[in-house]
């Protein structure tokens, strides 16, 4: 089905009817990985994950094994699973939580075991009504099944797990804002230092925060070994990854593909994957990793979906969502809408992000609506520069968290790639795409 052939990992049950139930899960290798893990030393489980070179799937792409190794030893420590997935066009955790909640729970238990944690939390986006319900039933089933609670499967290991709904703020996906929110406070990202939740996290205790998809890989890794995972993909981009493909393609949806072995062109054009641009139109641009990422154009189509390659080219795989824009897309409008999202979602702590996002949004809107002035183009860029000095990649920032420097990504890309479109809007006093 995919371009390279491999057995799917995280998505293997997604198309099976009733895959969210314990019954179906158990008849499809469910909790086999956990049982195996419990028969191993926790350190050995962790070392398999290190060997697997599993990159975090939440956006920053930090290797899970290394993050775990940083967890400070303490009597009390926590594991928190990030399922707040709210970035526009990102919908892979949404799929996992609705169709395979047990896999998330099993992965979380394995991680907790490896980390010596006895209390875990899953923070799930509140708007995932069905997913949240299924996650809750799965959790109840897991307790009944003996996979959670005291003395799991007679191993002596005990773990409690709580799921917590997000209250509708994108910023609560940022791991430290998530921890604040979990503690019952305003969802404000924490300022650094301290630099890592692994040292000072939830309730001031060492905490690992991992994405839902990240831990969904763990049952497979335990069963098949870290080396098998690392054998897939290439270099630091090991294994497979679930991508959310959206925009002007014939077959939008989620696709699990082998990392680094697949190119953007494959993902967008392969008949089993995106199936090409809709109505035979040509590509204008695409966003390689969620709306926080700088855009790519037709020239980058043959770049492999590899974390390093994309970073080198000045963008990121980020949250694993690829948005395709065909030639009929107004880049001004696209960047404006993305900015509007960030402006709505800024937590409001930092002056540059709080005020800058609104100003940039209003100026972009004005240009899009035909009321722009020539100087607005540089004005917007300079406003962006005051959030992310230099507009370089990886971004510098004048803000507390990286939501701030995510704002310039789309605006800067749109202006750099399609300045003529901006000029036309201003000269013609209207949007010619409308």
């Amino acid at each position, binding site marked *: 089905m995919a371009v390279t052939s491999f057995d799917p990992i995280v998505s293997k049950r997604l198309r099976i009817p009733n895959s969210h139930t314990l019954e179906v899960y158990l008849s499809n290798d469910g909790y086999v990985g956990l049982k195996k893990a419990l028969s191993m030393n926790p350190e050995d489980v962790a070392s398999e994950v290190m060997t697997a070179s599993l990159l975090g799937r939440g956006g920053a792409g930090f290797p899970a094994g290394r993050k775990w190794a940083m967890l400070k030893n303490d009597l009390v420590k926590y594991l928190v699973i990030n399922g707040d997935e709210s970035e526009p066009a990102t919908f892979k955790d949404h799929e996992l939580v609705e169709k395979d909640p047990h896999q998330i729970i099993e992965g979380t238990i394995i991680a907790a075991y490896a980390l010596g944690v006895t209390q875990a939390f899953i923070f799930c986006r509140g708007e995932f009504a069905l997913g949240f319900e299924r996650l809750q039933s799965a959790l109840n089933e897991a307790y009944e099944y003996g996979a959670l609670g005291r003395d799991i499967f007679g191993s002596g290991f005990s773990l409690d797990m709580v799921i917590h709904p997000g209250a509708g703020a994108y910023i609560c996906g940022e791991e430290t804002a998530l921890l604040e929110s979990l503690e019952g406070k305003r969802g404000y990202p924490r300022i650094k230092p301290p630099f890592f939740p692994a040292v000072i996290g939830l309730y001031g205790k060492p905490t690992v925060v991992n994405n839902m998809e990240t831990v969904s890989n763990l049952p497979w890794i335990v069963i098949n070994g870290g080396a098998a995972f690392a054998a897939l993909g290439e270099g630091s981009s090991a294994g497979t990854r679930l991508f959310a493909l959206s925009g002007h393609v014939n077959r939008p949806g989620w696709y699990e593909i082998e990392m680094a072995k697949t190119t953007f062109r494959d993902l967008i054009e392969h008949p089993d994957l995106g199936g090409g641009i809709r109505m035979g139109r040509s590509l204008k641009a695409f966003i390689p990793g969620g709306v926080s990422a700088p855009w790519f154009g037709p020239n980058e189509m043959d770049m492999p979906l590899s974390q390093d390659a994309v970073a080198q080219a000045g963008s990121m795989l980020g949250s694993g969502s690829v948005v395709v824009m065909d030639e009929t897309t107004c880049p001004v409008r696209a960047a404006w809408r993305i900015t509007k999202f960030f402006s709505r979602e800024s937590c409001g702590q930092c*002056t540059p992000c709080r005020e800058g996002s609104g100003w940039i949004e209003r100026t972009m809107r004005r240009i899009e609506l035909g009321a722009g002035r020539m100087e607005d183009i540089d004005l917007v860029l300079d406003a962006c520069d005051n959030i992310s000095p230099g507009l370089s990649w990886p971004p510098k920032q004048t803000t507390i968290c990286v939501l701030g420097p995510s704002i310039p990504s789309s605006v800067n890309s749109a202006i750099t790639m399609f300045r003529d479109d901006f000029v036309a809007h201003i000269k013609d006093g209207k949007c010619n795409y409308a």
Partner: protein
Amino acid sequence: MPESNDKITVTVDGNEVRADPGELIIEVAERAGVFVPRFCYHPRMKPVGMCRMCLVEVSSPRGPSLQPACFVPVADGMEISTESQSVQKAQNGVLEYLLLNHPLDCPVCDKGGECPLQDQTLAYGPGESRQVEEKRHFAKPIPISTLVELDRERCIQCSRCTRFANEIAGEALIDFFGRGEDTEVAIFPGKPFDSYFAGNTVQICPVGALTATPYRFKARPWDLEQVESTCTLCSVGCRIAVQSSANEVVRHLGIDIESVNHSWLCDKGRFGYLAMRSETRILEPSLRENGELVEVSWTDALEKAAALISEAKLVHGPQAIGFIGGARLTNESAYAWTKVAKAVVATDNTDAQLGDGMPAELVLGLPRATISDACKAKKLIVIGEDLKEVAPVLFLRLRPLIEEGKIDLVEFSTHETSLSKLAKASIPLVPGEIGTRVRALIGFIKGTKDAGEGIGIDVQEIKNASQALGSLEDNSDLVVIFSNSSAIENTQDLQAGILALEESFKNAKFMPVLRRSNIFGALDMGLSPNLLPGRVTLSGAKEYYKKQWGSVPEKSGMSALEMLKAASESKLKVLVLLGCDPISDFPDSKLAKDALLKVDTVIFVDSLANSSLDYADIVLPASMDSEREGSFTNLEGRISRISKKVSALGSSWPDWAIASELADALGEDLGFGSLDDIAKEIARLAPAYQGLRSTLSLRSEVDEGILLPVTSTKVEIKRKQGDPMVHLGLISVEHQGAPLKSGASNEPGVYSDEKQKPEIGSTVSLISKSDIKSDINLEPETEASGAKSLRLVVTRRLFDRGTQIYNSPFFRELISEQEVRIHPETASSLGIDNGGKVSISGESKKVSGLVVLDNRVDQSGVVLTWNVSEEDVRLLASDSEKSAHWVEVEN
């Protein structure tokens, strides 16, 4: 500052600076004379790094990056640039952003002219905005309490106000609402920002978003004049800046004093000046003629007063004359009045306390703790009143430290206090049982007695308390703060408890809390029976003062209670009221009324009318704070300056001048032609005050004041270079306004006066533990009488119907209802519901109030509040000589 070995070196704009590891960049830069612009940072609160105004460029192995100077600590070898191009661009950017949605209504904004947003924009910001869009709009301003109005358009979301409310005051009554650009400061629906400390948020708000209703549109900063002074509304003695416009006081601001108030004030102190212009101000001397007070000249009034005093003295002897009150006076005025009473009239009948305080020997005789001692203590015992109600800023200093776990608190209180939830243990008190319960705790710690055995309290609390206090051996880190827990009993029981603590915790320090104004100054100046100025006893210093003054009272005099009794028996003939109101402030109101009716002459010296004025025969108007000057002694024994800013209203005089002129009329010269004469005499004679250079005690730069007794001729002037973002609105450029870019700091200086060496103890010894009466009746009246089965407790609130307060329009609303606090179990046994209206009957009267169930009230007690309603709680008690009163509560 002594160089310690573990210092590190950083460079700030190319200059090397030594720093302690962990110091914030902003602090280190400031020491190096570099001011980093800022909005959200406030040195008395935890940094949050939110506004991003303080970004500086910091070197790191991965190249330079912009970091918030208020949040990032220095590291060895760090290179910090505060002026690089990228820093300037960031500063410019942040300011442009802040102004995008800012209404720029400076011309009608109270902050205009003293606004950090204006100032920092001028210094670091863009000349004009590039925004063409409409700004964000909000309805403005909205009142969030009776004293504070909020203009959300001006808010720059720095969170100083919300953090103050939450982190310092511990009352999260305001918080951010909404997100991003729509973030606004808000109160919770239907819950106003009714905090005793709301005014602080106005002071620290870096823009005109929070304004004080009484000050709104009253003045422009450039028209303000200012002196530094001391708040005298309670005994904490916060340092304030008094600001006036057109000869009228319009604002008080808190000054940041390390040892006292950290720039905070309570709203009583901040807005107390409003009483100055109240309608009840007494402006002219007057005499009662045919039942009416008739305005007369000072000469007539003083001559009349002198004639009546002389006559009474001649016919009945000096003991027929008495002086009650004096806590409102400056030290110098208190000294002058003491001299009038004790040297001229030769009576020892003086009492600055009104029967609800504590014995002067107990107050002055124990090893005294400073506020800093209390804040650095690891263990704290608080006995008596809720500190928030009686010493608000002391509470404010302690609360965050207790919350952070730096201080372990053990509380003995009659009801749930503002600190109860943070206390390690909270032991209920009822009048008559204080000594017993303190001794039970000590017994438990010693292991000699089972916890709470037979005294009817929760054993677990005693255990918790004992755990928090540890052993009796090492207790140099223990401070005991104590006050009278109920206003209408004698304090023998409290005294017994305190002495028991003193005996067991040998190294502990004590802080007595008397709430009234300069009460510590008045006691120090001898306005108490058996005292003479300078913390000495009449018996101990009789000869000494006789030599200096010519005459002193032969025998020890009467307390306020005894004077009022004597008056009611027609034994006391002349009563001088020195800024006090026995009718509404003495625990036994029947006795007070009777006494004032029976006594031949009442000489009323005060600034504002009160209930006792109706009984006055001679009225002498005294000037109020900011119209007078002198010094103040706070509850630590720290002396600081009270300054004059405006001219006195009407014909009022400073009290010392009234005393001095009265002495004149009595044919004696006190020898005081000026305030300085008195200050010099105090420094020469009063033992604890000896060596205090008069000019020094009156110097406003001696911010931290001078702790008594004076042990050195050197006084360090410690004020840090001013931070304009802390001292918002303070005008004195010399002391406060740091030049914005870089600047010369005010060098801490040492002022000394070699000529005037203190001669402490050279002639008489100061009051000490041995002066405290220990022959206390330890068998308090604990018997219930008949149906009246609950012990009455009367507590104080910061805002009651007391003169200054009730006369300020903004405070009337802050006076609470009469609450009846009662233990839930007691309530259910009496069939009483929370929130229900009940009546309490005592000796002769009923009082009604609303029930508040309170787990921390002793099951045998019921707690009412002093002076908050028309009904007089004092009438529930028979007389204030008892150590417990019994009442009945009915639906």
